[in-house]
Each structure stands twice: as structure tokens, then as C-alpha cells.
């Protein structure tokens, strides 16, 4: 139920993010979701893509500093309190969220939240136990 996420280290120089995106787009990699975290010197771009292995290889071959790690995608009802329910469960189990970001799919009723936990397995079992709608990699691209 884990989703593979690609992350890329990018120095704060103009045009670097464009180069990453262009490389992925030019090779028919579809970016489903992304987030960018930055400091004054550098940023880390994180991507959920349809072909993670291929994207990872492409980035490496082009001398980008890239990594692949597991995240969890959960479908959250797009209504007040939707996210609170998830966070409540995590808080009760004392599970830390490293970071999270969201995207809304076309059909519109649900938002998809991407979570990065320090202990992914522990988080997954807690969320499964609470019967949240955890999305696997395949269905993420069939939405």
C-alpha cells in the first residue's frame, strides 16, 4: 500500500526546477502530484509519477541527485473535518508526520493526501485499523 515517491535535490538557481520537469515531461513521465520544500540555498522537489523506476533512472543518468522513498496516499473526504480524523488517529498512536501535501483529483469529491512518516509501517497499520481509504500506486493513476 506504499507509494514510491521521487525526490530531487535542487540548488536555488534559476531554471533548475524547469530542467527537472522538462526532463520528466520530455520522456513521457506523468507527474501526478508534487511539492517543493526549500531553504535559502536549496530545495527538495518531491514527485509522485506514473513510472517511478524510469523517472529515478532518468534523473540519475542526467546527474541529478535523486532518491526514492515510500510515502502513503490517503483519500480524504473533501469536507470540513476530513483531515482532522486522520490526524487524530496518528496523534493517538504517537506517529510523527515528516511532511505532507495534497492534490485534488478531477472527479472532485475527495482530496488525496500524501504523507511521509518516519515509521511508514507503523503508520500504515494504524490507518488501516481505522479504516481510512489508503490508495495504492496503481489506482492512484487510474483515478
Amino acid at each position, binding site marked *: 500500500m506504499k507509494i514510491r515517491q521521487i525526490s530531487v535535490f535542487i*540548488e536555488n538557481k534559476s531554471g533548475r526546477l524547469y530542467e527537472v520537469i522538462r526532463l520528466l515531461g520530455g520522456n513521457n513521465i506523468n507527474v501526478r502530484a508534487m511539492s517543493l520544500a526549500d531553504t535559502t540555498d536549496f530545495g527538495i522537489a518531491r514527485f509522485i509519477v506514473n513510472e517511478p523506476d524510469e523517472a529515478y533512472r532518468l534523473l*540519475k543518468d542526467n546527474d541529478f*541527485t535523486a532518491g526514492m522513498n515510500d510515502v502513503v496516499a490517503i483519500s480524504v473526504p473533501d469536507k470540513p473535518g476530513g483531515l482532522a480524523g486522520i490526524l487524530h488517529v496518528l496523534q493517538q498512536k504517537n506517529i510523527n508526520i515528516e511532511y505532507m501535501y495534497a492534490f485534488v483529483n478531477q472527479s472532485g469529491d475527495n482530496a488525496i493526501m500524501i504523507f511521509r512518516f518516519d515509521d511508514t509501517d507503523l503508520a500504515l497499520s494504524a490507518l488501516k485499523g481505522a479504516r481510512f481509504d489508503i490508495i495504492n500506486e496503481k489506482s492512484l493513476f487510474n483515478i
Partner: protein
Amino acid sequence: MIWNPTYEKMPRKELEKLQLERLKHTAALVYNKVPHYKKVFDKANVRPEDIKSLDDLRRLPFTLKSDMRDNYPYGLFSAELDNIVRIHASSGTTGHPTVVGYTQNDIDIWSEVMARTFTAAGLTNKDVIQNAFGYGLFTGGLGAHYGAERIGASVIPVSGGNSHRQIMLLKDFRATAICGTPSYVASLIETAQDDGVDLHSLPVRVGIFGAEPWSAEMRREIEGKWGIKAIDIYGLSEIIGPGVSSECEEEQNGLHINEDHFIVETINPETAEVLPVGSEGELVFTTISKDGMPLIRYRTRDLSSVDPTPCSCGRTFVRMKKVRGRSDDMLIIRGVNVFPSQIESMLLEYNGVLPYYQIVVDKNGPMDTIEVQVEISEDVFFSDRIRSLQTAEYSLEKSIKESIGISAKVRFVEHRTIMRSEGKAQRVIDKRTEKKQ
């Protein structure tokens, strides 16, 4: 193994007698043949005949790098050009390059001392040596080449650079030893990893590295990643090139100076006062057997110390400590002396691998600033979490501050944005001097 036990194991008394005899000869040679030396000897009110014991060496004047520039190109040669068979030059970063001339006798001495170097590293005529020192005006390539041929090894004169081909040759020609600069070898290791070549599967067992200061941590790193024994060698073109001193495989602890050819002293770099044996200071060499361009008390600017205690390998030659840095490499940051090798040690200690790095020194108003740019790669430092990266930066800054006493900024940069060296690594960019010029 010892190439020439007669000299390398010569009892100290006998060795000192030989040194005195050769010193007298050399002093007379330069006094009679080189106008510069006649002038400076006269000025110091000393004559070659005044040398009665080795202690009299300190009465002779020093030779400085600037003397080489002032006498560019051939002014310090004591042999006629008819008898000079080779000319090398060091890359001059400022002004003229430093030129050195060799007679056939000098080339023979050079081959001899490099033969000792390879033998001390455990190599014989059964070995295949891939020589990745640069061939050309730089002394590394040809010096290693002649020494390797002298012991009868098979030499692959590949020179520096073209890393993919180097890896291919290592695989196909089955080299058992490699020589080159440590920074180039580190980039070769990286190339092998990119090419998917398992270095441990290659028959290379020994590496002979030198021509630039490198840290003990970097040695462990190269030895670990490649599974070879890394031997440190030392030399400088002014004295002969590589072959001035080298480690023995038995101890790998200090480099035996070929004292039948070179007399070593250590001095206080500021006052030029001769220091007692064992104290750290600037190394000073006098060549006592060369006849193309002998140098009297040449100040190397290299900082080290000399250990006279006997070595388990049986050589009677003193050992110099791994050079900590060249005094010209020393940076003065806000009044604090900093060696690039100190920063290298910090980086290596952090997680056991040496990343590519570069030190940029600049000025912000009257304040010197220092920035250590560190390349990150997936194996080193990289994380998808900003916090881990920042923590790494902060703790590196903290350890630099604690050990060296200066505040440096550590900045992560992208993979392969720092220039790879094929010869000596350019670790420092000092923008303060660029601004002055």
C-alpha cells in the same frame, strides 16, 4: 622488500660520512658553476671549504622558490645544456613556472629512488603498474614511469584523465598496482561505481599516491572502497620529483627520506631557525648527488616533522610525517591558520565517506568569509527531508567551528557541480586574492 639495501640500510655513521662527502662536493659544484650561489655564499661569508661537518650545513644560505623564478629559466643549472637531457617545469600559478634540468646521472638517480619507492610498496617485476600520474612537464608521470621500469614491472603509461578508459584498462590489462594523485583516484572510484565495475574484483592490490597533501581519513576511504593498500609518496620537482621519500608497506607510518641523496632539515617557517629533530616545521632539502641543478637548503613550504627512530622494515633512513599541508596552501581566515586538509578530515569523519568539496574564501567588507561547498549524492547526505539536510549542514559547521575555531558556512551543492581533477585537486578558491589582482 628493499631495493638497495647497501644504502637503504646503511648504518647511520657511515651514512652521515657519505652525506658530508657529497655535501662538500655539491657545495663546491654550485659555488663554482652557478653565479647565484657564488653571490649568496659570498654574501653569507661562507665558502665550500668551510664545510667540515654536517652541522656546517646551517651556515649555508637557503634557496627559495623566488630564487628559481629570478633565475628563470636556466640560471640555477650547474651543468651545461649539452649535458642536460631533460627539462621539467611545475605549473606556475603566479608568474613563471619553476624549471628543473636533469643530466643523465640525475635521471638515473631519479629512477633509483623511484625503484626504491615501488619496492618499498611491495612491488616487483611481476607487477603491472597503471601509471595515472600526468605525463608531460609535470614530474609525476615520467618519474613513476622510470622507477617502475627500473624494477622491471610492466608499466601502462595511461597518464591522468579519461576515467572510463582507465577503468577498462584496469579490467583488461589486469594491473596489480596503480599510481596517481589521491584526488584523481577518488574520482576514478566514482567512475567505476557509475560504470557498475566492482573495484574489489580487480587484481589491483596496491596504490602509490602522492603529489598533493591528503588526509589519513582519505587514505582509509580509498583503501576501504577499493580494498587496496594505499602508500603515500612525496616529492617535489625542485628536488627531483617523486622519490624524495616514501612509505614502507610494513609500517605505512612515515615516509623514509632517501638520505643518501637528500639531506633534510626542519625549520621554523617564520624565523627560519633550525628546529630540533622531531619538531614540526617547514621541510628544507639539500640535494647532494644531483649535478644538473643541485639545490642548497631549498625551502619546500611543506609542513611536517622528522622521526629518527628505527623502523621495523630495517631501513635506517629517517621518516618524515605525512605532510600536513603546504604553507602556501594554508589559509589565514580572520587571523586563524586553516589547512584545507583539516576541513577534509571533518567531512570524512561525518559519515565515513569523502564527498567532493571545495572551499571558497571571500571577503564581506573587512571580514573574511569561508564557505565549504559539499556535493551531495544519494549515498551521502541526501534525504527527502529538509530537516535532515539542514541538520547535517549545521553539525558540519559546528564541528569545523570546534576543531578549527572558525565559523564556516557549509552549503550543499548538486552532484557533479564541483570540477573533477585529473591531476592535483583544486580544493580552494580564494576570491580575496583574485580581487587584489
